[in-house]
């Protein structure tokens, strides 16, 4: 079927397009205007804005921890009063079905789950395959597992580590490699309650820095497009701005992605011993072209923090709102689920909010700063439209800031920042750059041959309204959303890499699992046929 989107303002930074024009779609791909043919379907999008489908690189939408959060907080899901138009606390809901629907309604077509624990990979993929409409992907976690730490302790060569990483990615169908407070969760098991970049992991002798370097090297050796995705040490601790700066240094000029950097921008100055260090971190990011970051913006509402950083989550249990939580000290990372309510009246929450916005606005290159709320840790992904409004309008920021404790704003630079994101920059940050970062050449742009993932928005003075309900959304050329409502359900693919490795590693792992656990190594693998839908994966080429 030949589809024409006629007369919209096409914003496509990859192809340097920002102007009125037509967009042609055929067989799920964007095509050149076909000479002499009549379209089967015409959508008049005059006055609308046409962008590629948005890509979220870091959103916890599937896996064991996400599921534990659902179990912990049934009250956030309850349709308490069926007559209410808006469900209570709808903003913190995340069933797989709703995840797909709500992302699609905002014009998102690809979402990456950033924390797939290797031994829970099946649960993660079952949930991902239950998310409708979107393409998905998952980043596999390593960095606290006994096998890797033992390799490092034994001083094994980088080749062995790369083989292990590749074998794990292959078994778990990961799109990239994530490490979470490397060594911290393992240290937690030995009653360590604070763990920095150069602290040694008990009994393994290695440090967070060494684990980080080894995994960075492995990603490089395997030519995995997405750089190592790092959840650094000391998340959320006042004064951790020094950790952020040291971690940027520790990348030694090699590609590194720093996740939810907002949570690492805290100084310890001022009367409350809590201030924003975002300006210093942004300056360091600006000076380190090898580093990419996503923000993890926090917004004021009820949410739940979900993390495999068990050490951090354990320390946060006292701040749970409501007062309940789950901490589990499982193999490797373990994890913790701690509900939290960010409040406008709270000094620290106000500083956190400002920190995130400072990062967005002070990092100059939109190709290196990514749009996330670390869903649901900073805020549910349903708040994205509000965040877009804050980025694109200084006035909206001032209005929101006026409701906060002014003493909190005084320890940030936010009030002095005038920058407003342009539509083109938004398109880079949410489309072009994520595709590049993940090595997805087929999306994030509207050039010929690209996937026909397209979002059409109706310009509105109310920016949140504009991004909250897309006028039209196409996934692989299928019209799936009309005016914010899903009109057609379909199933997307899960993106994965398949780096080659020496199969001797499989034998070695089999021996390890057999010896330590008495189970077969491949019982944790996720072969295609286990998943409920045919042909669930799309492979992303390993070539940097």
């Amino acid at each position, binding site marked *: 079927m030949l589809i024409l989107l006629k007369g919209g303002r096409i914003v496509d930074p990859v192809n340097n397009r920002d102007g009125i024009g037509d967009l042609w779609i055929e067989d799920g791909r964007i095509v050149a205007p076909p000479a002499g043919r009549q379209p089967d379907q015409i959508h008049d999008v005059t006055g609308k804005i046409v962008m590629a489908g948005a890509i979220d690189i870091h959103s916890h939408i599937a896996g064991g921890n996400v599921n534990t959060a659902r179990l912990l907080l049934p009250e956030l899901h*309850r349709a308490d009063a069926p*007559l209410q138009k808006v469900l209570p606390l709808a903003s913190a809901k995340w069933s797989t079905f709703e995840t797909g629907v709500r992302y699609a309604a905002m014009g998102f077509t690809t979402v990456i789950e950033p924390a797939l624990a290797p031994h829970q990979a099946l649960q993660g993929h079952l949930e991902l395959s239950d998310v409708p409409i979107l393409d998905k992907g998952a980043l596999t976690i390593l960095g606290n597992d006994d096998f890797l730490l033992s390799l490092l302790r034994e001083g094994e060569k980088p080749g062995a580590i790369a083989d292990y990483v590749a074998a794990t990615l292959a078994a778990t169908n990961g799109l990239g490699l994530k490490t979470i407070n490397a060594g911290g969760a393992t240290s937690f098991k030995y009653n360590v309650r604070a763990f920095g970049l150069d602290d040694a992991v008990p009994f393994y002798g290695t440090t967070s820095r060494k684990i980080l370097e080894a995994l960075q090297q492995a990603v490089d050796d395997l030519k995995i497009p997405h750089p190592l995705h790092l959840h650094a040490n000391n998340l959320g601790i006042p004064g951790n701005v020094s950790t952020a700066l040291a971690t940027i240094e520790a990348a030694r000029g090699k590609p590194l992605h720093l996740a939810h950097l907002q949570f690492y921008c805290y100084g310890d100055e001022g009367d409350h011993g809590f201030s924003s260090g975002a300006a210093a971190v942004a300056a360091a990011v600006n000076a380190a072209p090898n580093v990419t970051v996503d923000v993890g913006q926090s917004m004021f509402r009820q949410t739940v923090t979900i993390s495999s950083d068990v050490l951090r989550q354990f320390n946060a249990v006292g701040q749970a709102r409501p007062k309940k939580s789950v901490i589990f000290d499982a193999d490797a990372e373990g994890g913790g689920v701690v509900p939290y309510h960010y409040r406008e009246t709270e000094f620290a929450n106000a500083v956190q909010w400002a920190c995130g916005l400072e990062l967005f606005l002070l990092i100059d290159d939109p190709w290196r700063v990514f749009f996330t709320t670390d869903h649901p840790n900073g805020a549910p992904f349903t708040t994205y439209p509000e965040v877009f409004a804050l980025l694109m309008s200084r006035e909206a920021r001032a209005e929101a800031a006026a409701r906060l404790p002014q003493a909190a704003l005084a320890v940030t630079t936010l009030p002095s920042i005038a920058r407003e994101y342009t539509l083109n920059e938004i398109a880079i940050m949410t489309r072009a750059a994520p595709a590049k970062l993940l090595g997805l050449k087929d999306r994030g742009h509207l050039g010929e041959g690209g996937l026909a993932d397209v979002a059409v928005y109706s310009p509105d003075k109310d920016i949140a309204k504009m991004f909250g309900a897309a006028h039209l959304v196409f996934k692989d050329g299928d019209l799936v959303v009309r005016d914010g409502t899903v009109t057609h359900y379909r199933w997307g693919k899960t993106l994965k890499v398949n780096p080659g490795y020496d199969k001797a590693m499989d034998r070695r792992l089999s021996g390890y699992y057999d010896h330590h656990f008495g189970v077969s190594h491949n019982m944790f693998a996720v072969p295609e046929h286990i998943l409920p839908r045919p042909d669930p994966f799309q492979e992303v080429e390993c070539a940097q």
Partner: protein
Amino acid sequence: MKPLVLALEQEPDQRLDLSPLSPHRLDGKSAKEIAEIEVQTTREKVTVGDLFRIRPGDAQTIVFEGGSTRLDNVGLGLKGGEIIVEGDVGKCVGRSMSGGNLVVAGDAGPYAGSALSGGRLEIGGNAGDFLGGPLEGELEGVTGGLLIVRGDAGARAGDRLRRGTLVIEGSAGDYPGSRMIAGTLVVLGATGVLPGYLMRRGTIALANPPELAPTFLDCGAHELAFASLSSRLLKPESRGAAKLFSSLLHRFAGDSAALGKGEILFPA
């Protein structure tokens, strides 16, 4: 002034959500506006006017003539004023109410008085399971006010009770006062198994205690000024409860499987 009367004309053919029919939500509404309020819980639309004959009056007092176990959420979130039901109600009657007086002449379903925080809820007949308890995931059941059941209550009455007083004049099902955080629960009839299961603090007074769990520890029989105080304060609401508290009381402390600072009292 005359109360607002809603006379149920026939047994409804679906469960109804009557939460919109509270004094604070009907204040200033005409009979016509009240008749148009939707109360269905399925896709079949049902309005107040379809079900009830409305006799206009001051909505500060609402009288339901007739009742049905399909009337859910009666008096949900009641803040003040009065609701009188001259029949049965379904689940969640008086849930989250914070003030006012709610009287049900007949039986109530599960979660009656769930998360009550103030005011007074009286059930003339029997109540279902989880009397005053929280819904799934919520941390607290009743946090204030007074809840009286003249008949029997189902299992787990007073689950996660935090503050306030529950009096069951009939018998209570299994696990009354389960996971109690604090507060007072009185049962005058028979009691099912394991009262006070995992209670942290609070008082359970039982006229006819079953065998207690071994995690409740015998602290002996005592004359307590607190008991005579309770007796006097409860007398206007329940003579039976007043009588129970005026006797010499045997005290068992527990549940020592949880915090262990609660107590079960019964006549020595």
